[in-house]
């Protein structure tokens, strides 16, 4: 029998017996970031494609949620900090090697963009809206005229933000479950899918829902492909990565992962969307909400399970 123990009695809160230093705040932060990235990406792209009229929820209404989601996300990050008074240090340092660092900066840039974008549609949303100050009204006009120059960086930054939500985890070599370059694209796709689901929820146009629904279906297929690929990659990897994969294949996260993420969060909503597409009447709320739930749970599981995995020596 092999026996391993600490003779000096290590029992540090949140470190022993296994790492648990990131709690619910980080997965929430990642979820909100991914969702925002998805919405902003679609908004930018469809604006650039000139589909503002056909896809009002995509271009105008869903992005209204984004500033709130991003600020909330940043607040989640803040909540997670243990030395909060020193928060500002994030913005007096530029450290490109630190995903946490450039994530903060990406948010710093994309949040104002999203605010600008939403603000420029405020009067369409609330016809009685008034900016109170004349210079703001002038500025608004300027923004509306130049939307196309905002749409481009917005779409690009949205992709960066989406990838970032994955890279924040995958940058940590020390956690074998996160240690895969697939996590960036996977979280991007998953974020876009949650973004799409939000748009579907908000859209009143059948046509718009159909377009986004089709896109979402594609995203789900890609996401399932990435997940399969990731798990196979682990199984072909080192001992610690095989252990990581086993958390999902018989280990303690198997049920939650397969039931909530794969089946309820991906496969089932995909089926519903297919049914709807071929003409059955499916209340759109169901697949959309399932996707959002699945996306959220997926991040919780990845953060939680990742901290359980470690190097052996």
């Amino acid at each position, binding site marked *: 029998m092999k026996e*391993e123990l*600490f003779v*000096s009695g290590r029992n540090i809160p949140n*470190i022993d017996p296994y*790492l648990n230093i990131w709690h619910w705040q980080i997965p929430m932060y990642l979820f909100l970031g991914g969702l925002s990235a998805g919405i902003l990406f679609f908004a930018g792209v469809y604006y650039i494609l000139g589909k503002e009229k056909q896809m009002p929820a995509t271009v105008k209404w869903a992005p209204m949620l984004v500033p709130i989601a991003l600020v909330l996300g940043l607040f989640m990050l803040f909540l997670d900090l*243990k030395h*909060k008074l020193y928060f500002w240090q994030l913005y007096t340092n530029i*450290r490109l090697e*630190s995903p946490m660092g450039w994530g903060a900066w990406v948010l710093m840039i994309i949040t104002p963009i999203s605010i600008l974008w939403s603000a420029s549609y405020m009067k369409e949303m609330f016809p009685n809206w008034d900016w109170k100050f004349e210079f703001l009204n002038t500025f608004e006009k300027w923004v509306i005229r130049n939307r196309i120059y905002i749409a481009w960086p917005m779409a690009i930054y949205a992709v960066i933000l989406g990838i970032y939500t994955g890279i924040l985890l995958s940058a940590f070599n020390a956690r074998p479950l996160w240690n895969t370059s697939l996590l960036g694209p996977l979280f991007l796709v998953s974020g876009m899918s949650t973004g799409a689901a939000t748009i579907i929820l908000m859209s009143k146009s059948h046509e718009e829902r159909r377009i986004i629904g089709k896109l979402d279906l594609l995203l789900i297929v890609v996401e399932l492909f990435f997940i399969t690929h990731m798990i196979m990659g682990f199984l072909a990897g080192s001992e610690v990565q095989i252990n990581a994969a086993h958390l999902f294949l018989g280990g303690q996260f198997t049920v939650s992962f397969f039931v909530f993420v794969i089946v309820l969060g991906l496969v089932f909503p995909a089926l519903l969307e297919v049914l709807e597409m071929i003409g059955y009447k499916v209340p759109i709320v169901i697949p959309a909400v399932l996707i959002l739930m699945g996306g959220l749970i997926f991040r919780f599981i990845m953060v939680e399970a990742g901290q359980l995995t470690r190097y052996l020596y």
Partner: protein
Amino acid sequence: MRYAMAIDTRKCVGCSDCVVACQTENNVPIGFCRDWVSETVDGTYPNVSIELRSERCNHCDNSPCVRCCPTGASHIEDGGIVLVTQHRCIGCGACIQACPYEARYSHPDGYVDKCTFCIHRVRKGENPACVSVCPTKCMYFGDLDDPNSDIVNVLKNRKFKSLAPEAGTQPQIFYLV
């Protein structure tokens, strides 16, 4: 200059003196620690062997904890000592996630804390507290660039290993086996 530590597992008795000494030297709060002692037992009675190891931050040459720090609080000092500057640390926990050795902890005051190689002593020419207290004298601390140092000498003459080299961090604590 490259500070490093070599620890002789043949002599270590696992007494954990290095842990208490660190605690009283560095005001490490009770319930936390910058160093710890592990025991691995292999074999089946009566053919059994044990390895005792005093572990701490490896002051890695390729330190992921420093790279991932968003504020630069985690940084590298002269001699390769990896340090955390308390008033620059925001307590984001990224460095804790980044360390394959679980060598860092979140101090109750909010910042992240870890072994400093007792830089305050080393700068005065003393050994780290854990090294100087060890009753079995099984720890060697010194400059790898100094060919006359004890540590270079002992690494030349003994077989050694480091922990989880496959993590790619290039740890600078060596275990004599």
